[in-house]
């Protein structure tokens, strides 16, 4: 599909006056054949690595499929009913949405702030840029393990440090309360990803032509006016990209919670993907219900992202 799109856009963009319809068709057929040939590797890739697994999950979701004994025959729609009836289903949906909103607001806000800061500063530009970007070089699982040790009440250095500063009285249990666990994880995610979104937004900022700013200055626009009327609208495509990446990534959050909290304390930090994992491998061992949950999540993601793309579309496109 992705190969076909450029081809058709080239055809329209070329803009040569169409000769007669008949003369166009002949080379067209030839083009179409080679077009399919070009598309074949991608199509095969998509078929084997995407369509077939989705069909398998679809089949699982409609079958009684325990982890240890395999397919036991059709079980539709019981899996979906069991998935929604799971005692953590709604809790996990609510928690995932809460986490997504917090993470997205913080990451995009901080990423934009950092990008503007790095853009404006002259002396420390490369140092700042590197310092913020370095955590992105660490895998999310490794970063989570690092923070697990840092937060640990037994070996972690943060709690004694805060005590010595006199900020807190006793040992702090970062992951011990539901709110503590959520914010400790959010802090990790912000630390890990802020640099990445800064980079994406910096590219967007650099794409804004200098002349526009010059014109704004000549019109006597204030700093705030320049930001809200020039920078933000012209940054819209980059912001849309970042939001979609961030929302999708946060809705599918797993590694950080799996390592830091395992859904605890008291089942307060179970994300939807963690619920899928738990149902599949941690006790219930039911791949059918886990697949049904996956299908529900897939459907929700498709809807959410269509809505996002519609909402983010530039005004003139509407």
């Amino acid at each position, binding site marked *: *599909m*992705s190969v076909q*799109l450029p081809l*058709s856009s080239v055809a*329209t963009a070329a803009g040569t006056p169409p000769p007669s319809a008949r003369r166009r068709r002949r080379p067209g057929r030839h083009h179409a054949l080679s077009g399919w040939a070009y598309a074949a590797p991608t199509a095969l890739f998509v078929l084997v690595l*995407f369509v077939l*697994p*989705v069909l*398998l*999950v679809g089949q*699982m979701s409609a079958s009684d*499929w325990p*982890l*240890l*004994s*395999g*397919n*036991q025959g059709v079980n539709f729609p019981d899996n979906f009913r069991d998935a929604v009836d799971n005692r*953590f289903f709604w809790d996990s949906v609510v928690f995932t949405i809460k986490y997504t909103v917090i993470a997205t607001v913080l990451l995009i806000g901080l990423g934009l702030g950092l990008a503007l800061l790095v853009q404006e500063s002259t002396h420390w530009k490369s140092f700042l840029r590197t310092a913020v970007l370095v955590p992105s070089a660490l895998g999310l699982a490794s970063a989570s393990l690092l923070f697990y040790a840092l937060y*640990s*009440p*037994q070996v972690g250095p943060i709690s004694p440090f805060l005590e010595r500063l006199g900020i807190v009285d006793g*040992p702090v*249990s970062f*992951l*011990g309360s539901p709110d503590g666990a959520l914010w400790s994880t959010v802090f990790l995610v912000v630390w890990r990803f802020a640099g990445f979104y800064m980079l994406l937004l910096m590219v967007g900022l650099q794409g804004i032509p200098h002349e526009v700013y010059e014109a704004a200055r000549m019109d006597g626009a204030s700093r705030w006016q320049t930001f809200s009327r020039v920078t933000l609208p012209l940054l819209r495509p980059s912001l849309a990209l970042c939001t979609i990446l961030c929302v*999708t990534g946060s809705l*599918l959050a*797993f590694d950080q919670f799996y390592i830091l909290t*395992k*859904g*605890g*304390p*008291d*089942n307060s930090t*179970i994300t939807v*993907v963690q619920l*899928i*994992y*738990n149902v*599949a*491998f*941690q*006790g*219930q*061992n039911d*791949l059918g219900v*886990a*697949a049904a*949950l*996956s*299908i529900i*999540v*897939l459907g929700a*993601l*498709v809807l959410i*992202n*269509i809505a996002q*793309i519609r909402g983010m579309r530039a005004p003139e*496109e509407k």
Partner: protein
Amino acid sequence: MTHHRRTSATKAVASTLVIGLTTLGLAACGGSGDDGDGGDDGGGSTASSPEGVDDGSTLTMWTRAPLEKQANLLVDAYNASHENQVDLTIVPNDDYVAKVGAAAGSDGLPDLFAADIVYVPNWVQQGLFQDITGNIDGLDYADTINQGHLDAGTYEDAEYVLPFVLDVSMMFYNKDLYEQAGLDPEQGPTTLEEFGEQAKAVDEIGGGVDGTFFGGNCGGCLVFTWFPSIWAADEDVMNAEGTESLLASDTAKDVYAVYKDLVDSDAVGAGTRDETGATWVAPFQEGKVGVMPYPATLLSTADETIDVGVVPIPGPGGGGSTFVGGDGIGVSKDSEQSDQAWNFLQWMMSEEAQVDVLAKDGNVVSRSDLTDNEYAAADPRVQLINETAAEGRTPVALNFQQAFNAPSSPWLTLVRNAVFEDGSSIDADNEEITAILSQ
């Protein structure tokens, strides 16, 4: 414009689908293809000879990380003395069920694999092991093999599993800290109430030393360390079928009360509440904890750093018991070398392996006729562990993992409400456990 709009929308849907796939991958990697009856050609019960076959075959074997030390000792000793060679893979504890599940679905199980004894009833029923009843009955000492493990691996009168390593829980205490606290270092707690008093006494020492410690966010640890206190009072934790939870009995409530009292008076180590099981044995080993129920397999390791005293885990008002845990091992349904695999299993049960390998390292033996061995005689603590293990219990339930060990299990909810909260919801939480057990 319309054209452009449509393609961007299609693109968006396509990319969304690709992203969505990440979730699906998770569920999909668990199993593929048919339900795997390929390898089950049932060689097990009709072994050619009591010793199996030792012809230089390579046997694959999986076990989980907590029993790494014992597994390595056994495999090294076997490989050194036999033609057959065992190729051992150690899997992290948390990933073990997922790995076995994925392999079972794709007929890729190793020849031999060990399983946490509490999961064995379920896995046997799912047909992951071959029937080895005939082989086991052929052993002269069959009636001395640990009965708890054999029962867990018995389904419809056929036996599938032998004890691999017994891991029993015992009350460990730090003799040096007991002396500092003015307690008798040769006298551990004989009742659960005494355990509470002694823990508080040690906690008085201060300076980074705590009275006791437990895995407050680890269902498996709590099963292993707290169930024996209920058994010590001759009560049970479940009905015989493993379908009804009895964890709201008066005895059980007494047990929770002792621990709640320790939590309320801050005699437990920092991080007890959050401990998910990854580091629950560490503080005692560092000499920072006075007394706690502990895995007996770690006696030799703990001995390296501290002077350890050992007593059975007491119940409210006295008594003593233990959780006979650890791993059972069997020949997998996918193995085509069941005679060779049996050769390893029968050697593992032999006096040579039990005494000269396991007992020599301070481990519990799986045969009651070997408890009085030369190594145990040298250390009265090991002798006590062996004696207690013979009296201990192994709980059997099909849905054990979901009810007790899983990170979001109702048992964990019960304990946390009973010990860290006001403890008013024990009866309701107990019914949640029964709801899972009876499924």
